[in-house]
């Protein structure tokens, strides 16, 4: 169990300790027992469902219970509403490991519900809303929903700031902005539920409203998982490429990282940054079609071998042609060996004709290659590599990209070159006969391509 800061302890103590007497002292008068029972069952049932499958959505699993909480504010006095909502939230969160946060967050509901309920009563909201109340009845509901959102959000943010020692403003912003859509959207859903409840449908109405929402949430959760599985498959793709050529081990990943640094510096849009990352990771995928003999040949490549080597951007682009999510990244992979002076390959594009992605990757690729240790030479330091990049800036590299990388490195730094060459070779056996005498560092290969 982790230790809590003193302020977090006080916060937890007051709220959890105070919630038990509060549940008893809050108004209970005029409670409809049928409703109380039905809502209690709903809270528990949907708490179980939320716990089982909606983890990771709406911030926390109990976020999914929010429409039900809103309906409880409208249908029940504060005391019973809080009494049945708290167990539901505890159940929904039972899967999360942090017991203290779980209990404290459930306790936050008590004051939030009490305030919201009071607001609703002060504005003459009725506990038996019907269709005829609707246009006028919207205001108390909206005010109560807002109160619920604000109070619970403030308490959550305060507790997070206290436990994580984070600055208050960013936490506040995160808590309120991230949950705004769903939490405020839950208010009309809760109202729908309450009104339909009143129209001879009772608990059935609540189930009808909640079921589609849960199905949608479930699909969102699946989507998140599928996305993760997809990322994993892309990683497998990269690993498969790196099997063949020991030196590239980790190279793709680092090129991707450097490309992202450059892109951020250039202020690229986030969706383009994501695609550029993929382009960085996959830029050398075509090396798979270069025979191991050529790939690992010590000494200079002859003309035929050089041609084979220089085909890799084209084959690489062909290999990933079917991946629609790559978009612009295709051009980045195809042209990452072009030079600003037009003497690169495969198309001999010059200057601005070269796609932006390709210009970024060319710089990132050369930089990582120079800062990696090779068996025939030690790694250059980042400064020496930058100097080399600057020297070739304008002829080989786009000066904008070189400068962006320099600025990004000045700000974020670059992990010192460890011995990367051949690292991890114990996991996937190295190809037989491969000396790992890496004789085709990217820089050298570029020189070959350019001359």
């Amino acid at each position, binding site marked *: 169990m982790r230790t809590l800061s003193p302020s977090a302890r006080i916060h937890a103590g007051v709220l959890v300790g105070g919630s038990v007497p509060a549940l008893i002292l809050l108004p209970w008068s005029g409670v409809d027992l049928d409703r109380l029972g039905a809502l209690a069952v709903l809270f528990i049932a949907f708490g179980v*469902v939320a716990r*089982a*499958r909606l983890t990771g959505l709406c911030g926390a699993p109990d976020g999914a219970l929010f429409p039900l909480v809103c309906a409880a504010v409208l249908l029940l006095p504060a005391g019973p509403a809080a009494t049945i909502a708290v167990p539901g939230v505890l159940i929904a969160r039972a899967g999360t490991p942090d017991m203290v946060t779980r209990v404290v967050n459930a306790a936050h509901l008590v004051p939030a519900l009490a305030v919201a309920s009071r607001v609703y009563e002060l504005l003459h909201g009725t506990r038996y809303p019907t*269709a005829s109340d*609707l246009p006028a009845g919207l205001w108390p509901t909206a005010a109560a929903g807002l109160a619920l959102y604000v109070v619970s959000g403030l308490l959550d943010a305060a507790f997070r700031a206290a436990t994580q020692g984070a600055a208050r403003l960013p936490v506040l912003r995160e808590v309120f902005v991230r949950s705004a859509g769903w939490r405020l959207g839950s208010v*009309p*859903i809760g109202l729908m539920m309450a009104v*339909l409840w009143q*129209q*001879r*449908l*009772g608990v*059935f*109405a609540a*189930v*009808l*409203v909640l*079921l*589609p*929402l*849960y*199905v*949608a*949430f*479930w*699909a969102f959760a*699946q*989507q998140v*998982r*599928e*996305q*993760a*599985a*997809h990322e*994993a*498959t*892309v990683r*497998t*793709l990269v*690993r*498969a*490429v790196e*099997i*063949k050529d020991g030196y590239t081990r980790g190279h793709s990943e680092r090129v991707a990282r450097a490309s992202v640094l450059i892109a951020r510096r250039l202020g690229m849009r986030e969706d383009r940054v994501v695609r550029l990352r993929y382009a960085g990771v996959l830029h050398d995928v075509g090396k*798979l*079609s270069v*025979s*191991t003999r050529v790939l690992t040949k010590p000494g200079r490549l002859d003309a035929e071998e050089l041609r084979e080597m220089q085909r890799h951007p084209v*084959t690489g682009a062909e*290999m*990933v042609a*079917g*991946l*629609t*999510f790559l978009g612009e990244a295709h051009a980045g992979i195809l042209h990452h060996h072009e030079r600003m002076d037009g003497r690169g390959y495969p198309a001999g594009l010059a200057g601005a004709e070269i796609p932006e992605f390709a210009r970024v990757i060319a710089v990132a690729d050369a930089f990582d290659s120079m800062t990696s240790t090779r068996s025939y030479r030690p790694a250059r330091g980042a400064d020496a590599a930058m100097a080399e990049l600057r020297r070739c800036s304008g002829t080989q590299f786009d000066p904008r990209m070189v400068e962006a990388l320099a600025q990004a490195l000045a700000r974020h730094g670059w992990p010192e070159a460890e011995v990367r060459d051949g690292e991890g070779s114990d996991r*996937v*056996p190295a*190809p*037989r*006969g491969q000396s790992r005498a890496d004789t085709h560092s990217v820089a050298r290969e570029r020189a070959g391509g350019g001359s």
Partner: protein
Amino acid sequence: MTASEARCEPGAPATRLRAYTATVVLVLGALAAVAAVAATAARGVVQPSYALVFGAVIAVGETARVTLPGNRQTAPLGAAGALAYALLPDVHGTVSRHGVLQVVAVVGVALLAGTLPHVVRGRAPEPAYVARRLLAAGFAATLFRPLYAGGGLDPVMARGWAYGTFLVLVVLLTSLCDAVVAAMARVERPFRAALLAELRALCAGLSPAERFGPDGEDTGRAGGLTGIGTAVGASGMLIALSAGALGLWTVPVFCLPSLLVLLSFRRYAATRLVHRQTVDALSRLPEAAGCGSPGHAARVGDLAHAVGVDLGLGEVELRELRYAAKMHDIGQLALAEPVPGGITLELPEAEQRRIARLGAEVIRESGVLDRVAGIVAAQADPYRDGRGGPPPPLAGRIIKVVNAYDDLITLTEDPRSRREVFARLRADAAGAYDPRVVEALAQVLERSG
């Protein structure tokens, strides 16, 4: 005559009969549409404002269709709207008077309107899909409208719980009917298997089990509540009841949950598609690297899947099998010298198994595809290891047989040599191949001709 040919014989008439079931669905759908439109045109539209509102919902829902993996088309909003129109009770005290035929007509016209944007973009829906939607709406209306119009429902509707139970019953029966119709229309599978798949999809939406992961099985089994069918049924009832209780203006408001379902499933389907593309790209790597004949991975993937269907594998296992079969040659990438033509069959068994393990190693690093990696690792293990140990997993056995078959056919370079290839697979004295899988493969190939 070989054993497989003999086993195929009684299957042939059944296959022919299966083709008729699809035609029956189309004919029924067409009949319903013609009768409904004719009757409605003759009598005039009753309560046109209701028809207009629900027709609009259905049409909008239809323009926003989702194609789920497995090429299942659904329109959650459109289907919910149609169901709601069929189940519409008194609207704010006014008795709704539209009959079964008008429901079918409105749904049909709205379907047509909603389909137009798709047709313009060159993606016309399958006729079977339209027929299904019409028949489902007609079925629900047949259960509800005559009873309601005749006043038979009045005592039920007076009690909330009884009304709710009745509606749930109607929706359940409609879903069942729809599943039967869908299974009749999907002729590529045996009826029983198709019906089971439809029922599972009904309960579990996207058959969540289809996706995998460390806990893939758990979510798969517990998928009952989260199906798209559940969402459609609940939304349909919700829209009908709220319109009845509060008035027609609530219809767009209560469409919101369906809209959310639509959006979430769309995103999910899109991600699934992208993932599939990546797996395909991964499976083509060995070919690109010169270790594998072109199309080998895809052929083995498709054939293994077909054999898996024949052997009755569930959808989770099928998806894992397909992925593993497509990626089965990844291990060859780790070899310094590519195996000539990528044909591993002639290699010593120990070497074959080493390549399999290498491939599994790569796949396992992804961290998510562990079970696929397990299958890939087992693909070269013989059916009987000679020491009485347990056989490798079925998926691994399938890949071993299918891979050997494709290698042998490629080696002989003569597609007519299938007979000799099978003679070799069946003669297998060492017990490398599972005879059941070999026979299933023979059947699959026989059927596809």
